[in-house]
């Protein structure tokens, strides 16, 4: 083999075989640098320590429970592979874990720090829960206490509420991706709110809820979310992103829906209030009517009417009297006129004993004198006399003539 001449390909093939056979299933510690998350989903980085470095790849299908960043000390497990076209070798990682005391805790804090800095926990992003949801989405494992607790609590409190269940594994390698996908899917299923959660467990068991994938899916959801991961003491990244965090799955269901007995009590109360209000309203108006009837203005109305009637009667009487008087007066006038006209008849006064004088065949009226007459003819109603005149006296008034002459 000493002086054996090999082609580059042959040498590389032998190196590849040797390395890949002997460095399969190894673990190496180092610091991450030059970390690149390619758009294909694969992750490329370099692991280094004070004296050396090695290229690493983490395929898309490999799940890590934290966000690897430059400077982080990690434990990478995998195998060495050689890529002949470039003549280089790299560590193909099957897993990657943060190193040090409480490595998951460190990763948790690192992600929490990162998302907090990015504003994903800000109160302004928190959505208000609907008060009376009619359709509740549930994301949890199909088996386990959590789903039973949530469903029985919802059934007990608000059986009218429809449930859209999206089962998802809540631990294991695929959990994070499955939960994130379920969140996106339920978000467009027309639910009024979502409950996402699982029962208690170790930090490894809860890890899916500490991944950036789930965090981003929760942050992107338009549906309000209640998280209930683990027990009271367990806080996950999902709890910080969710709109409301419940201590347990049962508590999440209690927060999600009101007890129907409370709402029924409200409805019965509302019915009472409506009855009372409408009764008051009608009573108030009846009181108003009665009050109006008692009002001096209205009480005087009948008086006013009878007074008016009396006035009208009086006027009627006055009218009648006036008419009578007019008629009577007219009658009197007519009689007077008749009498007067009768009195004007030349022979009328003869009936009352007056006489006409005639001299020489002509009537002697009041403008003529008897001085030049020797005799006159006296005409009365039923007789005529011829008389001779002895003496004629003249005076201005009748009274002067009725006095006896001297």
């Amino acid at each position: 083999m000493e002086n054996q001449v090999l082609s580059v390909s042959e040498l590389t093939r032998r190196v590849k075989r040797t390395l890949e056979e002997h460095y399969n299933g190894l673990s190496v510690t180092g610091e991450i640098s030059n970390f690149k998350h390619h758009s294909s989903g694969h992750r490329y980085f370099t692991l280094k320590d004070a004296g050396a470095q090695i290229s690493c790849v983490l395929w898309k299908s490999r799940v890590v429970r934290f966000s690897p960043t430059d400077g982080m000390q990690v434990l990478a497990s995998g195998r060495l592979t050689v890529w002949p076209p470039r003549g280089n070798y790299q560590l193909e990682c099957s897993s990657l874990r943060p190193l040090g005391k409480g490595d998951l805790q460190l990763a948790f804090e690192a992600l929490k720090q990162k998302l907090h800095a990015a504003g994903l926990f800000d109160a302004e992003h928190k959505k208000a829960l609907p008060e009376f949801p009619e359709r509740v989405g549930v994301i949890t494992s199909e088996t386990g206490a959590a789903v039973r607790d949530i469903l029985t609590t919802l059934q007990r409190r608000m059986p009218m509420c429809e449930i859209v269940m999206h089962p998802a594994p809540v631990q294991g390698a695929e959990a994070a991706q499955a939960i994130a996908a379920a969140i996106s899917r339920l978000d467009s299923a027309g639910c009024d709110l979502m409950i996402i959660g699982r029962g208690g467990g170790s930090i490894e068991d809860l890890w899916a809820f500490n991944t950036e994938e789930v965090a981003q899916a929760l942050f992107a959801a338009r549906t309000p979310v209640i998280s209930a991961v683990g027990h009271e003491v367990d806080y996950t990244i999902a709890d910080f992103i969710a709109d409301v965090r419940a201590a347990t799955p049962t508590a999440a269901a209690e927060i999600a829906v009101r007890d129907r007995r409370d709402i029924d009590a409200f409805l019965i109360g509302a019915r009472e209030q409506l009855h009372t209000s409408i009764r008051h309203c009608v009573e108030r108006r009846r009181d108003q009517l009665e009050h109006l009837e008692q009002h001096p203005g209205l009480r005087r109305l009948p008086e006013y009417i009878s007074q008016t009637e009396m006035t009208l009667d009086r006027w009627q009487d006055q009218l009648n009297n006036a008419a009578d008087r007019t008629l009577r007066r007219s009658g009197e006038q007519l009689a007077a006129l008749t009498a007067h006209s009768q009195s004007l008849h030349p022979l009328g006064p003869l009936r009352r004993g007056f006489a006409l004088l005639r001299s020489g065949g002509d009537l002697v009226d009041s403008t003529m004198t008897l001085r030049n007459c020797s005799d006159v003819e006296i005409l009365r109603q039923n007789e005529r006399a011829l008389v001779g005149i002895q003496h004629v006296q003249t005076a201005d008034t009748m009274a002067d003539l009725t006095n006896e002459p001297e």
Partner: protein
Amino acid sequence: MAKQSFEQKLRRLEEIVEILDRGDQTLDSMIKLYEEGMKLIAESRKTLGKAEQRITVIRAAQESAAADA
């Protein structure tokens, strides 16, 4: 009118109770509101009375297949 959600019904009912309590409407509109309120109460209580829980399950079959590929 579009179908009211349960929440909308309860909100409307609260509103009606408040208006009637103020009592400053005409008797005519008060009676109309009263009737509307009674109808909402009856409908809501009927909805509340549904005893059977409806559960729809969405499966993630396609997503799992895609993830494995």
